[in-house]
């Protein structure tokens, strides 16, 4: 198969991030420069002296893909080549929402013509499943272990798409590995818009989430269908599209596919709290099919 993200990388079997990374780069095409944060994707795709990438690819530090990409974009603009070359900065959830947040914020604020892609696997998987800012509530990770005194991560997931949207940038979207054509459509749409763009893709990690390797797409799909991972698009600060769900599923269906939520299944009060998170997402973005308009504006599903 002809692709810009080649076989032979060292991701675990069933890795959601390697699925998404290939979909993104194949949608962007060969005239692309990729700048990568440190993380799983950087480590498994570029094991020196080998590289899985078929496009120019740069890695500098953990947090500064957005800053390096800003430099790349400015240089291309100076050379007058920006119109024919896309710049993509990408990283995992830790390097986007925790360590690299100020570099990302700077990039969005300065208005560089870059697409930033965050592969959200909901913890620091590369170093052994430590919790990150994007780890959901009540997740069992190695730094938020569940036990007698604790039910896992005590803090809710950081609303990264909304933080990016608050910068007033032209395009913000969330996507999921369960819907590959949707990822490619959003990447193409983002690259057709000038200015800073932010995209967050939900990528299941069979190792860190302790799910079966063949259920990567099922787990991602259930996260969308329970309302825990709303697929939304903001354009110029306005919610313009969202994937509506029918029928809505209870959160247990998503939680029971993964070992990281196993401790919750006999705790109805914790399940209720997670159902409340899903319900508030459904209400906030109008994910129920019967609802005509979400609170802000917009029409139709994604």
């Amino acid at each position, binding site marked *: *198969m002809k*692709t810009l*993200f*080649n*076989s*032979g*990388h*060292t*991701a*675990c*079997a*069933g*890795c*959601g991030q*390697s*699925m998404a990374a*290939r*979909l993104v780069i194949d949608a962007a095409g060969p005239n692309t420069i990729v700048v990568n944060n440190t993380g799983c994707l950087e480590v498994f*795709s*570029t*094991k*020196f*002296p*080998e*590289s*899985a*990438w*078929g*496009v120019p690819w740069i890695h500098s530090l953990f947090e500064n893909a957005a800053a390096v990409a800003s430099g790349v974009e400015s240089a291309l603009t100076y050379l007058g080549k920006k119109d024919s070359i896309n710049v993509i900065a990408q990283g995992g959830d830790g390097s986007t929402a925790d360590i690299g947040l100020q570099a990302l914020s700077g990039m969005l604020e300065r208005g560089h013509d870059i697409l930033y892609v965050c592969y959200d696997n909901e913890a620091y998987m590369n170093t052994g499943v430590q919790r990150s800012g994007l780890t959901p509530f009540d997740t069992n990770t190695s730094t938020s272990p569940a036990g007698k005194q604790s039910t896992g991560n005590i803090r809710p997931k950081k609303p990264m798409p909304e933080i990016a949207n608050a910068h007033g940038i032209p395009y913000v979207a969330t996507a999921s*590995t369960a819907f*590959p*054509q949707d990822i490619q459509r959003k990447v193409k749409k983002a690259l057709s818009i000038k200015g800073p763009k932010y995209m967050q893709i939900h990528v299941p990690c*069979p190792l860190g989430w302790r799910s*079966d*390797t*063949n*259920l*990567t*797409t*099922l787990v991602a799909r259930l996260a969308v269908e329970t309302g825990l991972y709303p697929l939304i698009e903001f354009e110029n600060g306005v919610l313009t599209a969202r994937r509506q769900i029918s029928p809505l599923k209870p959160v247990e269906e998503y939680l029971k596919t993964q070992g990281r939520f196993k401790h919750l299944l006999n705790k109805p009060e914790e399940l209720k709290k997670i159902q409340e998170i899903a319900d508030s997402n459904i209400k906030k973005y109008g994910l129920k099919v019967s609802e005509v308009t979400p609170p802000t504006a917009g029409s139709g599903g994604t």
Partner: protein
Amino acid sequence: MFGPLVCKPGASRNNRTGSWRMESRPKFLKKDCIACNMCLLICPEACISGQGKNNYDADFDYCKGCGNCAWICPKKDIEMVKEGHNPTGVGLPTPIKEGPKSK
């Protein structure tokens, strides 16, 4: 000293990850395929190729046997079969010489 480290694009293809496959491998039955392309789109290894009905195949030099293609196939035209003994060594990478084991 170290300059920027530059690799050949796509050089990871030298790294035959097929040896990671332990339990099962996908078998393309080629009976009910509707060429929906889903297996090819979601394969994390990019090792499935093909075009048109009943014409898809996986490259076992790279397939890690995760089973996502078999799960996503809407016609259940891909099934996971037990990984058997491979006497000819086809699809296996050249064996790595083992160094002295440290304890």
